[in-house]
Each structure stands twice: as C-alpha cells, then as structure tokens.
C-alpha cells in the first residue's frame, strides 16, 4: 500500500488534476478522465467497442481495471459498462457442459450448489479468491480476461479443460482455455471482442480439488495447485490433469499427470507426481517467497490436491438440470 501511495504522489506531482483533488488540496487517487457508456446487450457492447476503438475498455466488476486506472497502468479513453448484461450472468447445465456466463460473479459461483457438486475445485478456489465483499463484484470473465499470472480461475479452467466463448463482429468463436491464455495479461480475446461464456465439460465420476497458500486472507497466491481425476472401474486412474498457479508453469503439468495415468492411487505415486510438478515449475523470487520455498509448494500442494481429488472421485451424482 505504501508503494501505491508513492507512485500516485509522483503521478500527481507531474500531472496536476484540479478536479481530482480532495478538500484541502491533498491528492486523491482517481483515474484519469474518460468517457463512460453503458452497453445494453452484447451486440451493443461490440458496436461500442468498434465505435470507440483501441482506447475503449469493457468494465464489469472493476476490481482489476479501476486499481490499474488509479495507478495509470491503464488509461482508457472510454469505459463500456457491461454490468447490465443479464444475458451474461448465468450458471446452466446444458447436456454434458456447465455453461457459466462471463458476468457471473465470484459470489454466484460460490453460492451455486450445482457448481460445488460437479466441480468442487471451483468452490475450493473461490473460497480463497480475494474476500467476500470483493467476490460480490468480481466476475469469472474479468478474472480470465485480466490473465494475471497469480489468478486462480485460469488454473481451475486449465485443469477442467474449459472452453471460452468469444463474441465478435462475425459471430461467436470457441477457444480452448490453453489457447485463450497467451501469457501474463494477454489472452486470445481481441480488442473488438467480448468474452461471453465459459463452458466446463461434465465428466462422470470426476473428482477435483484446489489448494492455495497465501500470506494472509484475500492475498494473491504464493503458490497453488489444482487437479482433476477420473478413476476407472478397477480403481486405476483413467484421466488426470494438474495445474499450478503463480509458480511459473504455463498450462498443465503434463509429465506429472503422465506418471499417474493407468496407475492405482497411492501416496508414493503422488510423491512422484509432486516432484515432477515441482520440476516443471519455474517460480521467481519475490516478496512472497524464495524459489526453493515455492518449488516445495508446487510439490506439496500437488500431492495434497491429488489426494483430495481422488477422495472426491466417484462421488458425482447424476445431473438433473441446472
């Protein structure tokens, strides 16, 4: 928080903002001036994006964009508010997919019994994303679109092999989550497009889990791991995916998953997978911890989520509508 204040003071001293001043002349943190417009539909949002060009940004929960605007890390000329687009806020079981609208709030996901039953990993992650008040505003689309390397839902979507729906001028397109996420703060969603929906494949018998280590409640992850497992009738592992958050791994931990496939679950096996996940990670040292500690987290958290996911596998009850 201290850093934030200093940066802002510097900005204020070089770029006076008379109307952004607090009584008494002290600087306040407000975004630079912009124009504001509310979209009334996805089609309207697309038209507004086209009309206002490169310097327009969509805003939903605003908990990533507004802080960046206060710090001048983002300076859009137009904000297009999509909070009224009820068509983008839904959680629906549709055949073998769970469809989640991009404007669905974190609190909606956490409050959904169907999400918790089908994908307990989503509830594991949502419980440790920011805090309950922030979760009232933040959205799944905003989290994926921001593509912060320490963001939890990207790993969850990776592990569940989610698909992302993106609307553009020429209609809607589908992108696999690993193609959607192109690196830190970069996604396949173009400037003139709108992320509309995330779809999760429903897999009978799947168990899943997410675990995160954070310095304090609501903080970004020091490190986190997620896993999804499907057991065969003979009790061996038929399918498994493992992902890491904030530990320098893009996409899934493929080699760690490979040692598990076809094997019977055991702590020795999970230890092998943990070691391989740690080897696949490439964390950087920062204020949240040194590299060896983070590698240790990759190992330990991988073991733990595998254990939990196996314990949950097979517990899936038949789906009967959303």
């Amino acid at each position, binding site marked *: 928080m201290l850093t*934030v204040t200093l940066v802002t003071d510097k900005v204020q001293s070089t770029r006076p903002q008379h109307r952004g001043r607090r009584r008494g002349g002290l600087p306040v943190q407000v975004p630079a*001036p912009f124009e504001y417009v509310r979209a009334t539909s996805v089609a309207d949002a697309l038209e507004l994006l086209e009309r206002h060009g490169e310097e327009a940004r969509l805003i939903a929960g*605003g*908990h990533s964009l507004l802080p960046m605007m206060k710090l001048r890390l983002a300076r859009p000329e137009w904000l297009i508010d999509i909070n009224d687009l009820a068509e983008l806020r839904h959680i629906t079981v549709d055949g073998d997919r769970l469809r989640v609208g991009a404007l669905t709030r974190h609190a909606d996901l956490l409050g959904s019994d169907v999400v918790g039953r089908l994908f307990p990993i989503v509830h594991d992650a949502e419980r440790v994303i920011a805090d309950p*008040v922030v979760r*009232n505003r933040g959205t799944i689309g905003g989290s994926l679109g921001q593509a912060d390397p320490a963001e939890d839902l990207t790993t969850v979507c990776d592990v569940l092999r989610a698909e992302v729906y993106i609307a553009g001028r020429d209609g809607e397109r589908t992108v696999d989550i690993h193609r959607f996420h192109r690196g830190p703060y970069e996604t396949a969603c173009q400037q003139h497009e709108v992320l509309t929906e995330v779809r999760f494949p429903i897999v009978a018998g799947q168990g899943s889990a997410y675990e995160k280590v954070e310095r304090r409640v609501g903080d970004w992850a020091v490190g986190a791991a997620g896993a999804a497992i499907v057991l065969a009738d003979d009790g061996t592992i038929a399918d498994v995916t493992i992902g890491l958050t904030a530990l320098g791994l893009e996409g899934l931990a493929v080699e760690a998953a490979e040692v598990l496939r076809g094997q019977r679950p055991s702590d020795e096996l999970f230890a092998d997978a943990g070691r391989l996940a740690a080897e696949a990670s490439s964390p950087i040292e920062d204020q949240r911890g040194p590299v060896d500690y983070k590698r240790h987290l990759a190992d330990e958290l991988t073991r733990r989520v595998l254990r939990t996911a196996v314990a949950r596998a097979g517990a899936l009850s038949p789906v009967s509508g959303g």
Partner: protein
Amino acid sequence: MQVTMTVNGTEVTRDVEPRQLLVHFLRETLGLTGTHWGCDTSNCGTCVVLVDGEPVKSCTALAAMTAGHEVRTVEGMAQNGTLDPVQQGFMEEHGLQCGFCTPGMMLTARALLDRNPHPDDGEIREAISGQICRCTGYATIVRSVQWAAAHPATPTGDPMPTEQEVTA
C-alpha cells in the same frame, strides 16, 4: 454526466465526472461522510456500503456504475431515530474503539444478518474477512454482531428484548 440513484431511500440526481468513485460521490458530492475512505485499494473495507443490499467497496466502484441502484450507507441504518440492532450491538459489546472501520463493518454485518439471521462466529468472521480493524482484535466485533442477531428489530424498529431481559 448526470447520475440518479437511491441513497438511503431518497432518490438523488447529480452531475458527476465519469471517473468519480462512489466513495467520493457519497462523501463529497452528497456530504455523507459516515462512509470512510481508507486504503483506496479495496483491501481495508472501511468504505463498504450496501448496493442493492450487498456489501461493495465504494473505493472500487464508480458513481456512474451505481446509477439506477439502491445505496445504503451508515447514515441510513437507524430508522425513525432508533439505532439498527447492529449499531446498538456495537455499543453494547464495545465493537469499536477508534471507529474508523465501523461503518463498513456494520453494513457488512447488516447484509449478513439479512440473509443469515443466526450466523455462527465463523460465519461472522468470514463475512468481515475483507475488512480490517486495527483496534479491537475482532472479538468484540463478532460479539456485537451476535448481540444484533439475538436482538432483531421489531416492526417498530426497536431491538427486540431477549427473554432474559424481559424476565429480569
């Protein structure tokens, strides 16, 4: 631009800059300084107000985004001169010392009790986990919310006496 919203039951219309944050709209444009402005980075939670009944950090919302919605601030908690049970609870159980976090804490507590009238201590702690108090150590805040849960407002707005208090 012009925004219209309902604040504590009264419709207000004001000219604002699109970039004006809700917290500054409430404090400076409307003069409702009961909503406090703290860290400005959505960490501390002292700026929490209710928007359509849900707690929201008003330092990370634009006044423009709130147009058309219902806002409730600490000034709107007391009804007809009677404190909300949550406010009374903070008095009874010493839920505040310096008072800086108190408006946000009380509004989050109000929203919690509206959807869960009998929370356990863990549920109260979870509900206020996005808000920071540097004085009380939270124990008295939790007790204050429990006091409010035990004394829900009567239709006239007065906190209901508990059975013990009636027989005492």
